[in-house]
C-alpha cells in the first residue's frame, strides 16, 4: 500500500450522536494516488467526501486510519497540500493579485515582493486572468473568483492539490471554460490532484481515475474506474470517443442504483478496479442499461 505517492489506509470517521452511540460516516477507506495522477471522487451527499478531503488536508482528524503522503504521515495542515474550497475562500479585503501573493509569500517567505508578484502574475495568467487582477473578489464574477482560488493553490506548488467541488457554484458555461483551464494548468505543472465532484462529465473529462463511493452512513469506496480515454482531452470532442458513453453509463448506473444497493454492506470488500473501455469481461458482464446519454446525468450540486 505504502508504495503509492499518497496512500490513505483504513480511514474511518465517526461522530457521536445523542444517546451515547456513534454514527460511522465512512469506514475502511483505502485509496492510493500516484504522483502526477488526477483522481476524482464521486458519491452522493452525506457519504463523507468532504470529510475525507479535510482529513487529507489535515484540517480534520480521522477516527481511525492514516493518510501517508510522500512517506510521511499527515498530521495537520501543510503547504504541501493545497486546497481549493467550493466557496473560493478568498480574503475579501485583498485584491485578486494580493490573494495569490498571500499564498506565495506563505510558501516562500524569503522572496522579494517583486519575485512574489511576478510568480503570482504568471499563475493568474495561466488561469486566464491578467486584466482584473487588481480587483477585489466582490467585484469579480463567481468564475473569476474560482480562477483566482485555483491560481493561488497552483502557485504555491503543493505536492498534492485538493479540490472540493471547485465548480459546484458555477453555471454550466463558465464551468466548461474553467475545466479546460484546469486541464491546461494541470498538464503544464504535472500536479497531483484529488478532486471531489458531483458532475459525471466533469469527472470523465479531467480524471485518470474515478473513485465511486457508496451512500453513507458506513460509506466506502466501491470501485476505482480507470478512464483510459486518450489525452489531451477536449470538451467538444471527448464525447465522440466510442468509449465515452461506456464509462458514463457505468458511472451513472452506479450513482443511480448501485451506490444505494451497496451502501452499508461489508466494508472489508476490496475496492474493485474497472476499466469500462478495455475490460472484455466488463462489457459481457452487464448490459448497458441506458445507451443514450441522459440529460439529467449530472447530479445536483447540493451538498
Amino acid at each position, binding site marked *: 500500500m505504502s508504495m503509492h505517492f499518497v496512500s490513505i489506509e483504513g480511514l474511518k470517521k465517526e461522530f457521536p450522536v445523542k444517546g451515547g452511540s456513534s454514527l460511522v460516516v465512512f469506514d475502511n477507506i483505502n485509496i492510493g494516488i500516484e504522483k502526477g495522477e488526477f483522481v476524482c471522487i464521486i458519491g452522493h451527499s452525506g457519504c463523507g467526501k468532504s470529510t475525507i478531503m479535510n482529513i487529507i*488536508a*489535515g*484540517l480534520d482528524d480521522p477516527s481511525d486510519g492514516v493518510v501517508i503522503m510522500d512517506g510521511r504521515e499527515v498530521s495537520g*495542515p*501543510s*503547504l504541501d*497540500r*493545497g*486546497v481549493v*474550497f467550493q*466557496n473560493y*475562500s478568498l*480574503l*475579501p*479585503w485583498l485584491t485578486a493579485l494580493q490573494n495569490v501573493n*498571500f*499564498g506565495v509569500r*506563505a*510558501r516562500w517567505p524569503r522572496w522579494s515582493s517583486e519575485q512574489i508578484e511576478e510568480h503570482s502574475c504568471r499563475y493568474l495568467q495561466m488561469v486566464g486572468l491578467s486584466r482584473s487582477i487588481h480587483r*477585489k473578489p*466582490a467585484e469579480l464574477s463567481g468564475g473569476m473568483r474560482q480562477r483566482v482560488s485555483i491560481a493561488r493553490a497552483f502557485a*504555491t506548488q503543493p505536492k498534492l492539490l485538493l479540490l472540493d467541488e471547485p465548480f459546484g457554484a458555477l453555471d454550466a458555461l463558465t464551468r466548461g471554460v474553467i475545466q479546460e483551464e484546469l486541464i491546461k494548468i494541470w498538464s503544464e505543472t504535472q500536479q497531483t490532484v484529488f478532486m471531489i465532484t458531483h458532475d459525471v462529465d466533469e469527472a470523465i473529462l479531467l480524471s485518470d481515475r474515478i473513485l465511486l463511493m457508496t451512500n453513507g452512513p458506513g460509506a466506502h469506496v466501491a470501485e476505482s474506474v480507470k478512464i483510459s480515454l486518450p489525452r489531451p482531452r477536449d470538451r467538444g470532442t471527448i464525447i465522440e470517443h466510442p468509449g465515452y458513453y461506456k464509462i458514463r453509463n457505468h458511472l451513472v448506473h452506479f450513482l443511480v442504483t448501485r451506490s444505494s444497493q451497496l451502501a452499508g454492506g461489508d466494508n472489508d470488500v476490496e475496492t474493485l478496479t474497472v476499466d469500462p473501455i478495455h475490460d472484455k469481461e466488463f462489457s459481457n458482464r452487464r448490459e448497458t442499461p441506458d445507451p443514450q446519454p441522459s440529460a439529467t446525468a449530472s447530479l445536483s450540486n447540493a451538498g
Partner: protein
Amino acid sequence: MASLNVRAALLSVVLLIVLLGIWEALNQPPEASEALSEFELLMGGADEEARVPPPSQVLEHAWDELSNPFYDAGPNDKGIGIQLAYSLFRVLTGFFGAALVAIPLGFVVGMSPLMHKALNPYIQVLRPISPLAWMPLALFIIKDSEKSAIFVIFICSIWPMLINTAFGVANVRQDWIRVARTHELSSLRTAFSVILPAAAPTILTGMRISIGIAWLVIVAAEMLVGGTGIGYYVWNEWNNLDLNSVIFSILMIGVVGMLLDIALGTVARLVQYEE
C-alpha cells in the same frame, strides 16, 4: 423635481429658519414704557423675568468667540478653542489608552473560549458602572483631577471596544481561518494578516461607539473636576449667568462630537470590505 439631496437641504434650511424665528420671537424683552434708569439697564432693562437669549444674540456672541478662540485671560476666562482643546486632549488620551488595552484583550477573549468564559463575569459587572461613579475612587488613588478625568474616559471607552473586538474576532469566517491554516501561518501571522483585517470593521464600530460615549462623559467629568475643558466652561458660564455662552458651548459640544464621529467613520470606511 430637484434631486433628493437638494430637497433635503432646502427642508433643513426652512426648518432652521422657522425654529430660530420662533425662538427669536418668543424671547424678546418687553418694550420699555419709560426711559430706563441706569440701575434698570444694569439689571436687564424692563424685563420682569430672566429669559433665554434669542438666537440673534447667541450668534453675535458665537461670532465674537470664534473670531478669537485661543485667547487666555486668566483661569476663568479662556477662549473656546483652548477649552475644547483641553477636552479633546483628555478624550483622545483616555480613548487611545483604552484602545491599547481593549483591542489586544479583545483578541485574547475572542480567540480563546477559556479566556472568554473566565473574563466574561468581570466584563459584565464592570461594564454597566457609570463612568462617573469611578471618579471619587480615581481622585483618591490618582490624587490628580486632570489624570482622574482621563481615567474616567479610559474606563468608559474600554467596554464597547473590548466587546466588539472580541465579537468580531470570534466570528471571523471559518473559511478564512482554514485558508490561514492550510498556508501554515503562525498564530501571530494569522492574527495580523487574517483575523485583524477580517474583524476590523467590527472593531471600528466599537471604537466609534466608544468615542461617542467618551465625548458625552467628558462634559460631565469636567463639570466635576473643574479647572479647564468644555464641561467646566459650560458650568462656569452658568455660574456667571452668561446664557449666551452656555448655549454657544452646547452647540460647540455637538459640532465637535459630530466631527469625532465623522473622523472615525472615515477610518471605518477604509477598513470596510465587501464579501
